[in-house]
């Protein structure tokens, strides 16, 4: 996959910090996260549960929870800062210009309204069309995603999981927005349906030309669907670049770990899990947030937060040991590196 040279950014998230007020104190869920989504491309955002992926999406959508506060940054969409726009402007932009495919279609659809009505209301909230015209638009879109249009009269509980997800996709695309945010759109589905859904999304994208921000914890999904990707860990973007570069030559140890945890079809190696758990948002590590789990961490990693540095063309990584990483990659692929850090790390470093 190649990146056509000068792409105008459709959305530019710059230095976005979000803090949650919790009973245990403030939690830094997003720390200076920056991300560019060029027009007409798919960008993948990968990270563990709770790393801030969904918070980033909600910030773009302007639906952060009441206890969340945006402490810094801007989100530029076609030149307008969404964080400084008034409520009515935002409401008009939502869905018409930026729509979203949610994680759980079952919970996103209101159980007491028919699927058709829920698409129709989304259309009529943004376009001055009659109910009949909106129904026609909904029927066409449903047909396009592979749901029989007559099923529009059914309630969500009468749909299968795959059909509900398709209905959400139809709803997300019916107003032909420029950007679609997809928040783990297929986590609740089995592999075959998951594959069908992504094929459908890709063909629709080719047809309609929207940009997509695909948020997932599944690296394989990103490899299949995106041209660019960013890796997020504990509220920070730790690596970003073209999918091919990041996957084939990862720089950040977290990305190396993520790649290890992918099951390999050729069975040349068993998946290796990253030991430990992500840090507590109310008690983030001082330096690099990945340092406590990182087999390559040095004293400087625990005191100084690393910044994103260019490591290749359009490829950036936030690690103090960026320069040494190419040499460390073979070690990162070994099980012992991750699971016996106490004994191996020091000795191998001396050698």
């Amino acid at each position, binding site marked *: 996959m190649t990146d056509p040279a000068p792409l105008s950014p459709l959305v530019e998230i710059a230095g976005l910090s979000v803090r949650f007020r919790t009973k245990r104190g403030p939690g830094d869920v997003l720390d200076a996260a920056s991300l560019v989504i060029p027009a007409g491309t798919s960008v993948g955002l990968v990270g563990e549960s709770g790393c801030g992926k969904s918070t980033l999406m909600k910030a773009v959508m302007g*639906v952060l929870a009441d206890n969340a506060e945006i402490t810094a940054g801007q989100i530029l969409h076609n030149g307008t800062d969404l964080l400084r726009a008034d409520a009515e402007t935002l409401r008009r932009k939502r869905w018409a210009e930026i*729509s*979203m495919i949610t994680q759980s279609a079952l919970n996103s659809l*209101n*159980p007491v*309204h028919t699927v058709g009505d829920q698409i129709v*209301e*989304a259309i009529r*909230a943004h376009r001055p069309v009659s109910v009949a015209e909106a129904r026609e638009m909904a029927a066409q879109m449903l047909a396009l995603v592979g749901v029989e249009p007559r099923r529009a009269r059914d*309630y969500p509980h009468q749909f299968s999981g795959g059909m509900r997800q398709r209905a959400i996709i139809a709803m997300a695309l019916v107003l032909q927005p420029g950007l679609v945010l997809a928040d783990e759109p297929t986590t609740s589905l089995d592999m075959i349906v998951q594959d069908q859904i992504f094929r459908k999304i890709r063909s629709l994208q080719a047809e309609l030309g929207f940009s997509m921000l695909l948020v997932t914890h599944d690296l394989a999904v990103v490899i299949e669907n995106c041209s660019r990707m960013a890796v997020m860990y504990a509220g920070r973007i730790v690596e970003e670049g073209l999918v091919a570069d990041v996957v084939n030559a990862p720089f950040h140890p977290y990305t190396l770990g993520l790649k290890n945890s992918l099951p390999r079809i050729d069975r040349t190696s068993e998946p290796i899990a990253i030991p430990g758990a992500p840090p507590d948002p109310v008690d983030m590590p001082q330096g690099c947030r990945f340092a406590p789990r990182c087999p390559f961490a040095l004293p400087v990693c625990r005191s100084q937060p690393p910044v994103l540095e260019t490591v290749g063309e359009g490829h950036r990584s936030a690690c103090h040991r960026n320069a040494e990483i190419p040499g460390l990659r073979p070690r990162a692929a070994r099980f012992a590196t991750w699971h016996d850090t106490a004994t191996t790390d020091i000795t191998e470093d001396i050698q």
Partner: protein
Amino acid sequence: MRQYILRRCWHMLITLFALMTIMFFLFRLLPGDPAMTVISSAMYPKAQEAMRAQFGLDKPLLQQYLIYLQNLITFDFGYSFHSSRSVSELLGGRIVNTLVLILPSMILAYLLGAVLGALMGWYRGGRFETAMVLVFTVLQAAPVFWLGMLAILLFSINLGWFPPGHLVTPGMFVNRDLWMYLSADFLHHLALPFIVHTSYQIAFPLLLMRSSMLSTAGEDFVEFARIKGLPERRILFRHAARNSMLPVATTIPMILGWALAGSVVIETVFSWPGLGLLMIEGVQRSDFPVVQAAFYLIAVLTILGTFVADILYGILDPRIVYD
């Protein structure tokens, strides 16, 4: 849907039958012989027996039971011990008086309660909202007779805005017909018991709707409605409130039965000649046929209310399976 209604009809018939059976034995289990209130022990034994035969009390219990069922089904409640008029005739006017007070007030309480509760749940946390919660909690906790007495004291005795009781000004209407129920005099008399009953009944649906809204507001589909860029009012009413109504709707039959039974209290306070007051009078005069009939009608109205609410619930929640 039709099957669902038919099934609910069938359930209703079974409930009615159970009710009638329980009532038959309940009144026969009461201490003392009800017949003795009309049949004087001073009568000749022969005359006593003749009267017993006239009431059908000489027949075997099973036969009495079957006759009783037949009578109830045809709304033949016999004659009042006290006035010797037929019980159906006595009840006829009274039931209208009760319904005209209780039903509109319940409908208003549920509609207004649901809307106010929805708004309070949506815009929660303000000082005004906290004060409202306090006011309605007090209203719900206060006994209705006490509220009624306070209202009479304030609005009738001190301010003189409303008459303290009765259906109409005594002597103003010769015939109790439709015109009476539409007259300004009647409405003037209705106002105070209506306001008291509504204020008392509104607290429950309102507080329930409010807490139901609090949990619905956190649902994914409400956030999704916001993501879809729907106007705030549409999210509030079409999504959050619409779904929060479900648990509130389930309480309608229970509360309606409670309100009909509670008409005894409000009608006594306001000397409102309804079913409840008739029941009190019947009990005081040991007028068994009247009490039994009033009891029966209140139960039938409650069962009908439950039936309507069940159908309503089936319409409100498409996930209800009709088979």
